[in-house]
């Protein structure tokens, strides 16, 4: 039995990382938590009545209401986590409205009213005009082509027997599946935000892939247009039955604005014997203005359970948005010979803060996990990689490879690495590599002496740094992610 104590590796390019968050900490909720009392919106505040009201409005069966209430009661006694290396003012949970009917919100009337910087980014990403309107929150009557695309997709999925619908729909249509799996990977009591989410989640996605079925296409929320407004407490449940395969894409490379400042989503993945789930995320929520004001707080709990033997769950994420990211997509390797993977690129610039990483919990025999984390910090960006690899006593022959690289741009950004390793079985094979580097002046000069502009040089070097992760993304997503990264880092040098 051996335990390696947690070791914190910290790399800071300058020691002035404490004072610089004063502004952020003092920033008010200028854009967040704006509650407009509409007929279909509950007033701010949270109590049992509100939880019941949400459940009632969604016409949920009693078991669902009770499940929510149980979560709510436990949540009342739970503390907010304070261990993450992020700083923000305390959140008043009684000031939030927990239900807003998915109606068209009062948004900008036309593109003329939208932040020109946002529009510029849309144009750089090559997003069609109608889509730009939708992203900027302008009411669009006919949602371009994807209506027909979505219909075609649904028929194809139906033929294969794949269930892909909103979680609300699933509660009504497939209650036995939801009851069997909901909360079994991320219990409501897991942490403060999962407790809150379990009590008040308004919508999200449900996927079930039947036995020995290979899902005929990449599933993406992008095409699930009828539930565009999933709100701030999103709930996703994906079940891959024995011998099945599914690839799921979440998010969008275009910067998304949202009037809700706090996002506390829960994602649960379950892979049974010989099943594989590939979950890819590109997250680009509004990061706030130059001072970090108005940006999204992304406090999300994502966990996959390799419940069956020889099952595999793979997380790939590209995180460029949000003011604060608190996120650790994890794998429980329960089945023998199961495999967990985590590939991550996280970018922080301006006043963005990210504390992200993964947990690989090895319970089954001959389980293996791979962690590749690439962190990029520019300007005052601050980020921490926090990872746990736990090998249980009965996990004979477990293997882990962790690679954790940080890239600093400029002299005010910082990167921290907190790898935790707990090994209780001496047959485990563990590898850990960590590097911190800066884009060197030599590299920049070399590129420039070949005719490339400084910005192109930075984007080329950064994309090279992230290559191992981009290689894991589905093709078209990878191309978009690369473009996104270049745009994110424009003007970040100097």
């Amino acid at each position: 039995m051996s335990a390696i104590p947690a070791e914190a590796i910290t790399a800071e390019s300058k020691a002035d990382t404490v004072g610089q968050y004063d502004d952020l900490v003092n920033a008010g909720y200028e854009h967040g938590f704006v509650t407009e009392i509409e007929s279909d919106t509950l007033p701010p505040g949270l109590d049992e009545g509100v939880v019941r009201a949400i459940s009632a409005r969604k016409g949920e069966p009693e078991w669902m209401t009770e499940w929510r209430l149980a979560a709510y009661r436990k949540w009342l006694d739970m503390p907010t986590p304070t261990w993450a290396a992020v700083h923000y003012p305390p959140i008043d949970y009684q000031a939030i409205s927990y239900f807003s009917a998915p109606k068209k919100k009062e948004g900008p009337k036309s593109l003329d009213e939208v932040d020109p910087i946002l529009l510029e980014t849309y144009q750089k990403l090559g997003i069609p005009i109608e889509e730009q309107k939708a992203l900027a929150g302008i009411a669009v009557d006919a949602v371009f082509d994807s209506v027909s695309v979505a219909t075609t997709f649904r028929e194809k999925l139906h033929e294969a027997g794949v269930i892909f619908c909103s979680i609300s729909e699933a509660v009504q249509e497939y209650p036995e599946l939801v009851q069997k799996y909901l909360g079994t990977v991320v219990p409501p009591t897991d942490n403060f935000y999962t407790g809150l989410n379990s009590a008040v989640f308004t919508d999200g996605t449900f996927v079930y892939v039947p036995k020995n079925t290979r899902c005929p296409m990449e599933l993406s929320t992008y095409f699930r247009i009828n539930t565009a407004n999933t709100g701030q407490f999103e709930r996703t449940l994906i079940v891959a039955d024995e011998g099945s395969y599914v690839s799921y894409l979440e998010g969008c490379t275009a910067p998304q604005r949202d009037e809700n400042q706090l996002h506390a989503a829960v994602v649960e993945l379950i892979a049974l014997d010989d099943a594989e789930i590939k979950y890819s995320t590109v997250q680009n929520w509004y990061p706030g203005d130059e001072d970090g004001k108005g940006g999204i707080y992304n406090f999300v709990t994502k966990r996959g359970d390799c419940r069956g033997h020889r099952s595999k769950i793979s997380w790939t994420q590209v995180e460029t948005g949000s003011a604060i990211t608190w996120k650790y997509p994890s794998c429980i390797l329960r089945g023998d010979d199961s495999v967990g993977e985590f590939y991550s690129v996280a970018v922080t610039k301006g006043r963005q803060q990210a504390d992200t990483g993964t947990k690989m919990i090895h319970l089954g025999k001959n389980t293996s996990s791979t962690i590749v984390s690439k962190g990029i910090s520019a300007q005052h960006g601050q980020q921490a990689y926090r990872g746990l690899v736990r090998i249980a006593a009965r996990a004979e022959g477990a293997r882990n490879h962790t690679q954790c690289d940080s890239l600093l741009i400029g002299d005010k950004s910082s990167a921290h690495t907190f790898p935790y390793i707990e090994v209780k079985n001496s047959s485990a094979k563990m590898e850990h590599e960590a590097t911190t580097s800066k884009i060197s002046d030599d590299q920049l000069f070399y590129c420039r002496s070949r005719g490339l502009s400084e910005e192109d040089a930075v984007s080329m070097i950064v994309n090279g740094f992230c290559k191992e992760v981009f290689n894991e993304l589905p093709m078209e997503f990878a191309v978009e992610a690369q473009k996104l990264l270049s745009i994110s880092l424009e003007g970040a040098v100097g």
Partner: protein
Amino acid sequence: MLSVKGLKATVGDKEILRGLDLEVGPGEVHAIMGPNGSGKSTFAHVLSGREGYEVTAGSAKLDGTDLFELDPEERARLGLFLAFQYPVELPGVNNMYFLKAALNAIRKSRGEDELDAVSFMRLMKEKLKVLHLDDSLLKRPVNFGFSGGEKKRNEIFQMAMLEPKLAILDETDSGLDIDALRIVADGVNALRSPERSMIVVTHYQRLLDYIEPDYVHVLAKGQIIRSGGKELALELEEKGYGWIVDGEAA
């Protein structure tokens, strides 16, 4: 082509170049030799625009354009190329992709059409043939994990692709064994043309056995103290630098 007049440059408080004059005509190959610390590499870096040097006096004009008014990338687009003494590694950046981006940045700045993948591949194959190189380096990340010889060959290949007006080879012979040296020198010779000038910066005469210069200059203490034909290089090889440098100082 290149006209350098009274160039003075400092690093920190230290003056490295102390009034350097050099005229390079079209198609000419000039060798700049000199003892360690004479300012050879500084001269190459100052011309290509590396940060960390301050030009305190003098001018450098390429076809009439003042280089010191331009950023490094603008100088490259104008037709200046520096083959590095220590080529820099760019992990994860594909060599072909890098070259295509560089070439297109240069073409674009000249109002030429950017090359598509097919035309780029065609051009690349052509240049590989001229230089007698195979394509094994192209699929790897730029200089990453390359041997010393591979790095230098890659520099010469980049030069072939970017077709500069003026190429500066900064101690291209350093760290090369005799076979690698010959391959690199053959490449350079293949790229000689009436429109392309070259400045070959070197410490040893050895490289000049393979790349025959039109002119040889001796740089010492930040100035060119002796110029001559290729026979000057042989004299230096025989007698060392002492006789000129000390003679000048006396």
